C-alpha cells in the first residue's frame, strides 16, 4: 500500500487536497498531514512515505526546502496557489505540481503518473531534480542562519556561538546542546524543538544525521558502519557515538 504525506500551512486547502485524494486514490494511506515545513520534514523522517504532497509556501521550511532534503527518497508533488514560472519545468515529469484549489481531473492525472512511476521505479528522473530545486530555492527568501544559541541555565542566559556547538539532540521536551564553550560541563538545554532549530541552522555547518540528532560536521571523526542497516558517528575528542538513521547514511559514502 502506498503511503503519503500532505503538508499545507492552511487548513482548508489541506483538507481539500485530502478529500480529493480520498476519491482519486482510495487505496492511498495518508500517514501524516503537516501544517508547516518543519513538521512535514519531521513527519517524513518518522514515516518515510513514498509520496509527498508539499505546499511551496510554508512557514519554517518551504516546500522546496523539504523536497531538497527528501531528495530521491520519495516522489514529490508540489501544491501552489499560483503557477510560478519555474514550476512549468516540473511538467517534464520528474515531479509533479498541482494548482490550488485542486482540480479533481488534474489530480487524477497526477495520481496516474505517480502510480506509473511506482510500477517501474527504476526509470530515471527526466530532469536534474536537485538542480531544479536549487534554482527554485534561490528565488525564495531565506533568513540568515542562527549565529547564537541562547540557553537558560538557572538564573542566567548563556550565549553559545553556533560554531562552538558539537551537536544538538532531542531530549523529551527539550533540545540538548553539547558544545565546546566553557561552563555547564559543555551541556545546556533549550526549549526550541530540534525540528524547528533545523530550519534556522547553517546547512553548510550542521548536518542532520538522525530524526533527533543534528551534528556540527567539523566535530565528526568517523562514520562507522555496524551492519547492513546501522551506522554511527564517532566524534573528535569525545567518547559518545551518535546514531545515523537509514535516510542519512548516504551522507557518508566515502570517496
Amino acid at each position: 500500500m502506498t503511503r503519503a504525506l500532505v503538508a499545507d500551512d492552511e487548513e482548508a486547502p489541506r483538507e481539500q487536497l485530502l478529500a480529493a485524494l480520498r476519491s482519486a486514490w482510495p487505496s492511498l494511506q495518508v500517514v501524516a498531514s503537516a501544517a508547516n515545513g518543519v513538521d512535514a520534514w519531521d513527519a517524513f523522517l518518522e514515516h518515510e512515505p513514498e509520496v509527498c504532497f508539499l505546499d511551496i509556501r510554508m512557514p519554517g521550511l518551504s516546500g522546496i526546502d523539504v523536497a531538497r532534503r527528501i531528495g530521491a527518497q520519495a516522489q514529490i508533488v508540489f501544491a501552489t496557489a499560483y503557477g510560478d514560472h519555474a514550476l512549468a519545468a516540473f511538467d517534464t515529469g520528474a515531479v509533479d505540481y498541482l494548482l490550488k484549489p485542486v482540480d479533481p481531473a488534474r489530480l487524477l492525472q497526477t495520481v496516474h503518473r505517480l502510480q506509473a512511476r511506482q510500477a517501474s521505479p527504476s526509470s530515471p528522473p527526466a530532469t536534474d531534480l536537485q538542480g531544479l530545486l536549487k534554482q527554485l530555492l534561490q528565488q525564495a527568501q531565506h533568513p540568515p542562519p542562527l549565529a547564537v544559541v541562547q540557553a537558560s541555565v538557572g538564573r542566567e542566559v548563556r550565549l553559545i556561538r553556533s560554531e562552538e556547538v558539537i551537536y544538538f539532540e532531542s531530549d523529551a521536551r527539550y533540545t540538548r546542546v553539547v558544545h565546546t564553550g566553557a561552563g555547564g560541563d559543555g551541556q545546556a538545554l533549550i526549549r526550541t524543538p530540534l525540528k524547528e532549530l533545523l530550519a534556522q541552522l547553517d546547512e553548510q555547518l550542521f548536518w542532520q544525521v538522525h530524526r533527533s540528532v543534528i551534528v556540527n560536521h567539523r566535530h565528526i571523526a568517523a562514520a562507522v558502519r555496524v551492519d547492513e542497516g546501522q551506522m554511527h558517528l564517532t566524534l573528535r575528542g569525545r567518547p559518545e557515538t551518535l546514531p545515523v538513521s537509514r535516510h542519512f547514511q548516504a551522507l557518508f559514502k566515502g570517496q
Partner: protein
Amino acid sequence: MPAQPIDWCQLWYPGPKRAFTADEMARAGSDAPSPTMLVMAIINFATVAFVALQLAPAGQTARTAAALGALAVLAATAARWLWWRPWRRPLMQMQLGVTAAMVLLALGIRWRLPEREDRFAVGLTLAVGCAVIVVLMWFLVLWRAQQIEARLREQAERERAIEMARRLAAAQLEPHFLFNTLASVQHWVQCKDDRAAPLLAALTGYLRATLPMFNRPLLAVGDELQAIERYLQVMQARMGARLAWRIDVDAALHTLQLPPGVLLTLTENAVVHGLEPQLGGGELLLRGRLQGDAAHFEVIDNGPGPAPGMQEGVGLSNIRQRLLLACGAAAQLRLGAAPGGGFKAELSMTTSAAHSPPPP
C-alpha cells in the same frame, strides 16, 4: 553650471543629429503633411512668384515663370523627401543637390539670354530662390524632428504611467492571495462549512474596496481602513489562530486624504513577510495618532523583523513615489525594527501636507 562646449561641427554640417529608426518613424512620424501646411506653402510661393514676375524684365516673363515653376517642383520634391527623413544627413544631401540643380538651371538659362542685364536678373532670382529653399528645408527638418521627438517623449511617458498602474494593480491583487483564498472558499463550500459565507463576504468586500482604489489619486483613511479590515478578516479565516490583529486609529484621522493603498500595502507586507513565515504566526497592530497638526501611523508586527540587507520591493517603492507626489517631502516613511523585535513601518506627515478636505 558647466559650460557647454561649442559644437563646431554644426557650423559646416548643421541639422538635428538624431536619425530616427524605422520603428520610431512608424510610431511618431507616420503622418503626412497636413492640408493647412500645404495651403500655407502654396500661398507663400504664389506671393513670391507674383513679386518675382512683377520685378522680372519685360519680355522675360515667360522664362521667369518657367524658372519659378522648376523651383516649385524642386522645392516640393525636396520637402516631401525630407518630411520622411528629418535629420542631418538627408538634409545636407538635399541642400547640396538643390544647389547643384540650381547652378545647372542658371547655366542653362544663361546660354539663351543675349542681354547681360537679363542674365544678371535671372541669375540673381535663382540664387535668392536657392538660398530661400535651403534655409526653408533647414527649418522644416528642425521643426519636424522636434515634433517627432516630442511625440516619442510623450509616448514614453504614457507607457511609463501605464506600466506603473499595471504594476500597482499587480502588486495589489496578489495571485497567491486570491487563489489561496478561493481554495479555502471552495473547500468550505464543498463540505458545507459555516466559515465559507463570512470568508466570501470579506473577500468580496476587499475586492470591492481595492479594485477601484487606484483609479483615484487620494482616498480617505477611513475608507482605506475598511479595506484593511476586510483583508485582515480574509487572512484571519485562512490563518486561524496564527493571526491576531488590532486596528487603533484616532477617529479624527478618518477624513485625512492619503494616496490609496499606502496603509494597506504596509499591512499586507507585515502579514506576508512578518507573520505568515512564522511557525506560530503572530500579532499585527495598526495604530494612528493625531497630535495637533501631526499625523502618525504605525504598522507593527512581532515577526522576525528586518533582515540584514533587506531590499525594498515594488510595493514599497510605489508607496514612496505616490507619497512624494501627493504630499511632497513632508510625508515620511520609515522602516525598521520594532522595539520588542519584529518589524515597524512608520508613516508621519502634517495634516496640512496631506490633502485634507475643505471644512464643510
